[in-house]
């Protein structure tokens, strides 16, 4: 499975409601040992929403200060991110990811993990 296959996929809950598109995935380094790298990167969850744009520009890190207009614009687009833990994923279809439960009880990415 390639990461590019997951990105952009529509996340759909049990009632068939859309929760948004996958914009990034969270990895945690606690998988089985792989070669010389150490513990491999486990796919911990999916990040849904627009936040990845601002993150890509670097504004995730609090240290990134300016330029002000860009930071403000990014902040405005930023807040609708949501997080799906991997064990809530039921099935992966081309362009769609089905999850258990409802789209409403998905936490914000920074609250998770």
């Amino acid at each position, binding site marked *: 499975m390639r990461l590019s296959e997951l990105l952009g996929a529509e996340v759909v809950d049990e009632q068939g409601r859309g929760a948004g598109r996958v914009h990034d995935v969270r990895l945690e380094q606690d998988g089985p040992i792989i070669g010389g790298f150490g513990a491999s*990167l486990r796919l911990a969850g999916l990040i849904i929403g627009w936040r990845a744009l601002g993150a890509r520009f670097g504004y995730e890190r609090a240290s990134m200060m300016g330029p002000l207009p860009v930071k403000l614009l990014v902040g405005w687009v930023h807040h609708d991110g949501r997080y799906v833990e991997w064990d809530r994923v039921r099935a992966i279809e081309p362009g769609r990811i089905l999850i258990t439960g409802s789209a409403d009880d998905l936490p914000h990415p920074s609250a998770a993990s």
Partner: protein
Amino acid sequence: MAGRVLDAGLDLFDRQLLDKDARLAGKVDDLEFSFPEGGGPPHVTAILAGPGALAGRLGGRLGAWLEGLANRLRDSQERRPARIPFGVVKRIGSCVDLSVAKEELETDRVDAWIGDHVISRIPGARHAPE
């Protein structure tokens, strides 16, 4: 580095790959996930690089065309993009450091081919750097 948390698109995608001698070895174009044998969630098993991998990122017709081109460039029978097993990754920072030399990577084949058949033919190609 136990328990370190990364966001794949943010911290890994499009990062510069450096080989063990700090030479430039391409970019992280895509990541390969596999399900481990004992079951459980998928984990990253390889970095995919080269036109075949980039095709997946670009998507649509451009991606499909690029993938076709890439498959023709690769002389192997397999229809898959060049992969760098994740075990040779040494460190992930602002660049991704690898523990092997560039020549040992699958992704180096086109470079090597161009180097041997085109560039080397021009006088002065092996000259010391200018």
